[in-house]
C-alpha cells in the first residue's frame, strides 16, 4: 500500500439560497505514489471543488481523507501548514493566480522563505534552480507576470508549486487557457518532472485528449459523484457508463476518414442544488427508465474498475446489439 492520497466518501456541500448545493457528494478513490489520476467532467460537476477540498482550500462537509496513511480530514493550524508544504496546487489561469505586484523572483521565492527551511544566502540559488528546471529564462527574474506570455506564466506557477519539493500536486485545468503548441510544452514539462521526482498528480480537466495523454487512472464525475473510474487505457478503449460513452463520443475527432458514432445527449447538466435520490444522469440518459430512480453505487466491475450503474450489463448488451446491427447493414464485420 503506497497510496499518497486516499479519500473516502468525501462530501463538500454549500448552503445557497434555495437549498444545499451538493458540489462533491460521496467521492472515494486513492492515488498511488508516482502516478497521475485524471478527473474529468463538465463545468459544474464538482471536479475543481474536489481538488480544492483535498488540499484543504475548502473544508470538507463529511468523509475522510488520508495522506500517506495519516488521517488529514481535520487539521489544526500548525499541521495544516506542514500539510501544505507537502501538497500544492497549479491553477488554470496563471495570470489570476500570480500576484501582479510581485516579480517572478519574489513569486518563486515566497514559499521558500515562508517555510523557513532555507537560509537567506541560499534563496537566490534555489530560485535559479527552480527557474531552470521549469524553463523560465534567467533574464525574467525581475519581470512582472503581465510581461510574460501565458505559457511562461504557467511555468512560473509550476516553479512556485515545486519550490518546497511536494509529494502531491493538484493541477486544475493547467493548460486549458493555452494554445496547443504551448500546451504541449507544459504537458511535457509536467511529465518530465513527475518522472524525475516521483511526484503524484491529480489532473483536473475537461479536455479528454489531454487527460488520456497524461493520466494513469481516470475518474469521470457527474453532478458531484464519480460515475466511472479505472485505468486510462481501459476507460478510453471500452467506456461502460452511458455518460462516459456520450462524453467520449462528443469529442470531435481529427480522423477525417473514420468519424466515430456520436451520442448527442439531450438537455444539459441538471442542478446540483437538492439533487434528490436516484441516478443523477437519468434525465439525459438515453437508457433511463423507472429503475434509475434508485440510488446507484459505484461498484467494482473488473479489477480496479468501477462503474455506478446498476443496469450496466443490460445497457451494454443493447449498445452492442445496435452496433452489430449497424455493422451488418453496412456489410462490415466487427
Amino acid at each position: 500500500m503506497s497510496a499518497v492520497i486516499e479519500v473516502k466518501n468525501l462530501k463538500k456541500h454549500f448552503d445557497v439560497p434555495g437549498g444545499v448545493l451538493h458540489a462533491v457528494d460521496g467521492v472515494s478513490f486513492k492515488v498511488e505514489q508516482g502516478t497521475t489520476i485524471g478527473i474529468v467532467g463538465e463545468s459544474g460537476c464538482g471536479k475543481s471543488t474536489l481538488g480544492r477540498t483535498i488540499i484543504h482550500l475548502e473544508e470538507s462537509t463529511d468523509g475522510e481523507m488520508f495522506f500517506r496513511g495519516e488521517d488529514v480530514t481535520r487539521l489544526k493550524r500548525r499541521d495544516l501548514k506542514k500539510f501544505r508544504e507537502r501538497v500544492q496546487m497549479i491553477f488554470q489561469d496563471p495570470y489570476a493566480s500570480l500576484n501582479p505586484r510581485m516579480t517572478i523572483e519574489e513569486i518563486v521565492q515566497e514559499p521558500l522563505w515562508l517555510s523557513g527551511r532555507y537560509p537567506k544566502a541560499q534563496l537566490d540559488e534555489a530560485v535559479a534552480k527552480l527557474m531552470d528546471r521549469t524553463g523560465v529564462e534567467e533574464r525574467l527574474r525581475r519581470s512582472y507576470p503581465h510581461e510574460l506570455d501565458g505559457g511562461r506564466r504557467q511555468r512560473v506557477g509550476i516553479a512556485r508549486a515545486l519550490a518546497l519539493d511536494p509529494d502531491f500536486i493538484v493541477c486544475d485545468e493547467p493548460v486549458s487557457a493555452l494554445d496547443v503548441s504551448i500546451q504541449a510544452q507544459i504537458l511535457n514539462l509536467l511529465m518530465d518532472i513527475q518522472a524525475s521526482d516521483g511526484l503524484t498528480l491529480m489532473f483536473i480537466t475537461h479536455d479528454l485528449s489531454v487527460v488520456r495523454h497524461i493520466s494513469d487512472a481516470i475518474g469521470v464525475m457527474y453532478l458531484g459523484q464519480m460515475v466511472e473510474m479505472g485505468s486510462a487505457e481501459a476507460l478510453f478503449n471500452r467506456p461502460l457508463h452511458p455518460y462516459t460513452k456520450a462524453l467520449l463520443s462528443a469529442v470531435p475527432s481529427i480522423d477525417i476518414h473514420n468519424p466515430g458514432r456520436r451520442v448527442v445527449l439531450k438537455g444539459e447538466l441538471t442542478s446540483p442544488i437538492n439533487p434528490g435520490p436516484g441516478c443523477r444522469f437519468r434525465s439525459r440518459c438515453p437508457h433511463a427508465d423507472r429503475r434509475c430512480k434508485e440510488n446507484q453505487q459505484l461498484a467494482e466491475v473488473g479489477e480496479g474498475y468501477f462503474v455506478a450503474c446498476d443496469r450496466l450489463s443490460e445497457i451494454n448488451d443493447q449498445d452492442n446489439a445496435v452496433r452489430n446491427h449497424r455493422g451488418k447493414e453496412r456489410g462490415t464485420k466487427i
Partner: protein
Amino acid sequence: MGNTDKFLSIRNLNVEYTSGGDVIYAVNGLSLDLERGKSLGLVGETGAGKTTVAKAILRVLPTPPAGIKGGEIFLDGEDILKKPEDKMLDIRGRRISMIFQDPMTALNPTMKIGDQIAEIVRLHSDDSPHEVKHRAMDMLNRVGIMADRFNDYPYQLSGGMKQRVIIAMALVFRPELLLADEPTTALDVTIQAQVLEIIRHFKQKFNSSMILITHDLGIVAENCDTVAVIYAGQIVEYGSLEDVFDRPSHPYTVGLFHSLPGFAVGEARLHPIGGSLPDPRVHAAGCSFYPRCPRAADGCAAGEVPNRELSPGHFCRCLCPEV
C-alpha cells in the same frame, strides 16, 4: 454574376492596429476564397488574426485603432470594402451574420432574449409587430428553446442556451455567409456537440456558406470542406480537408498536428512547436514562421515567400514544404 463558384473572395487584405504609437500588423496580405454553400475552417492560434479577418469582412472593426490598409473583399463579385456604411447595414445581419465566441458578452443583459431576436427582425423587415414576435418565437423554437422562455433574461439561461439564442439571431434572415468565431469554445463537449449540430442543420437547409474560426482541428475535421491555416496574419496553407489533414505540408501545420495529445496515442512525449508567435509590431521580411521552423533554411529569412500550389487547390506558403 449570381452563382459564381467564388462566392467570397478576399484579396491581399491588410489590417493594422495602432496602439500607443506602435503599429501592430494583424493581417498581412491575406487572400482567401470560399464557394457558395461550403464551409471553410480558419485555423490558428491566439493572436494569429482570425477574428480580425472576420470583423473586416463584416466591417465592424473599431476604427481607430484598427484600419484596413489595403485589399479587397468580394461578396458575390462586389467589393464590400467600397460600399458606403448605409449599404453595409443591409448586408450585416441579412446577407452576412456572425456568431461570437462568448455568448455572455454578445447578448444584452438587460433585455429579454425574445426581444433581442425581435429587434433584429424589426430592423431588417417591414413586418407588423405581431409578425415580428411570431418570427422571433419561431426562431427560438427552431434552435430548441421553448417559446415560454421568450421573456427570460440572459442570466436565466445556461451557456449553451445563450449560444442557441445567438445562433437564432444570426440565422433569422437565412444569411448567405455565416461567420462563426469559436462558437463552441466556451461550452462543454456534450453541449458543443448539440450546438454544432444546430449550426450544421441550418447551414445545410439555407445553403449558407460558412467561415468557421477555431483552434480545434477536430471541429474543422467534422464541419469543413476546405481549411486555411493562418499564422501571423497570413494564410500559410490552404486546401481541401483531405489536402490539409492527409498531406499537411507547411511546417507550422505539421507542428500543430504533432502538438495534439490525441495525434499519436501511446507516445509518451508530445512534439510542441518551440518558441512563440512573433512580435506583431515588427514587419519582418521573409517567412514569419522562420524563427520557430525546424526546416528553416538560408533563403527563409529574407525576401518574399512564394505561395506555391502543390497540387490543384492545395497551396502552401513555404520555400521547403513537406511533401
